[in-house]
């Protein structure tokens, strides 16, 4: 590992250690936070007992579906908006202010439209993630060298072939950045709606544990989500570095 990597590990490890000491010495009382080692132990027990498996599977499949829909939908919407500058000029400020809208409030509406199943949550995750993908697609398309598009015209490619064979690879790094954000936002949308409104899934399990003063389970679940999302981010980061090495910077 590089020197910076060791520093990072040291900072994170030090923070955890300080937390552990504060909890063990009683500076932070048990009703506020349990020591990190106990969180790990509680999480281990939960995973072994298997009582979370259903919630985990449900949340992850919802996130995955929302993510896939958002990435493909966002790419094609981005292509469409990019192809029509007049629409883009109008939509731009709306895209920039999009994340100020709290989408959870549409959950009841979505239940009536889609029924009492996982679909409303997937839709909220999608709504959260799709705009990050659209914005990054637009950024990526803006930076495609003109000559590549001219080449496509010379070869008389139709719009779909141009999109898939020229634009997609040429804007790949920006699209990748969009996909990374889309994962994060899909997680936020899905878990937040489970937390506030739903009656199942990991987000709900945390809210339920909180309401029942079950700190052990609550912190174990929090730790699980943090570790999971960090692991996903890390793998995306490594993959992105590999892409950068192969294709050079944007």
């Amino acid at each position, binding site marked *: 590992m590089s020197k*910076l990597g060791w*520093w*990072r590990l040291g*900072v*994170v490890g030090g923070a955890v250690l300080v937390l552990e000491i504060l909890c063990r010495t009683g500076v932070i009382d048990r*009703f*506020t*936070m349990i020591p990190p080692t106990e969180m790990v132990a509680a999480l281990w027990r939960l995973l072994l007992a298997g009582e979370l498996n259903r919630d985990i599977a449900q949340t992850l499949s919802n996130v995955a579906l929302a993510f896939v829909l958002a990435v493909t939908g966002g790419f094609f919407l981005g292509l469409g908006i990019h192809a029509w500058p*007049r*629409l883009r*000029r*109008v*939509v731009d*400020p*709306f895209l*920039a*202010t*999009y*994340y*100020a*809208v*709290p989408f*959870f*409030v*549409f*959950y*009841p*509406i979505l*239940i*009536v*439209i889609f029924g009492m199943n996982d679909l409303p949550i997937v839709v909220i995750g999608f709504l959260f993630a799709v705009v990050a993908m659209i914005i990054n697609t637009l950024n990526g398309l803006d930076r495609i060298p003109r000559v590549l598009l001219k080449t496509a015209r010379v070869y008389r490619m139709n719009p779909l072939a141009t999109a898939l064979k020229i634009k997609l690879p040429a804007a790949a790094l920006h699209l990748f950045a969009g996909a*990374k*954000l889309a*994962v*994060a936002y899909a*997680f*936020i949308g899905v*878990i*937040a709606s489970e*937390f*506030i*409104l739903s009656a199942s899934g990991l*987000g709900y399990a*945390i*809210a339920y*544990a*909180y309401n029942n003063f079950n*700190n052990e389970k*609550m912190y174990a*679940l*929090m730790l699980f*989500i*943090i570790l999971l*999302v*960090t692991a996903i*981010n*890390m793998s995306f*980061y490594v993959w992105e570095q590999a892409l950068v090495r192969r294709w050079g910077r944007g």
Partner: protein
Amino acid sequence: MSRALDTALFVGALLLAWQGLYWLAGEVALASPAVTAGRALELLGQASFWPHAAETGIAFGYALGCAILGGFGLGLLLGLHRLSGAVAEPILVSLYSLPKVTLYPLMLLIFGLGLSAKVAFGVIHGIIPMTLFTMNAVRTVAPVYFKAARVMQVGRGGMIVHIILPAALPEIVSGVRVGFSLTLLGVLIGEMFASQRGLGHLVIRAIGRHDVPTMMAVTLLLIVVAVILNSGLLALDRRLHRRV
């Protein structure tokens, strides 16, 4: 002028889509645009609405203030000190993409039920993008400015006020813009869960009572205010970026 027309057309199309969805899904799910607007006006005229709006406004104001000042201070430190910046950046980026809702119970346990938990929750949403933007802005200040400052024997404080702040201002405003949306989101999520006051609470109460027009009216008011304020910031952002 044509731009204003296009925007009007776009908003018109959105309203039309809303009306269409209303016809499709019916009274149970949606209120029509007209009913929602009527209910929103009615709410604005009610005395009982304003304490909730004020509560949200105060919580949001505190949270945004803390996020901007804290993010600026942190970003400044991390931007000036290369090693700590390089160490902190990936950590901050992965914190940025955590679903922070999961941490809300923690905020409640530390700060107790009430205003401070909401503010703290808003701050953890807004402070990270603000830090990242400030850090990158400070890092990319042209070295020649620092040299000029050293030649003129500008002190540390003067360096920040006269060199870094003006040079990094456009990026900082971008950070404020992103932080604005996320802080609002954080405060509203905070109000939706374990809270007795504020607009987020009004929405959740309306959902619980299946009072669709109120729910949509409060949401509409929130969206309109957020979009107007954010458009102002966006205009400022673009203007500053063009100036440089």
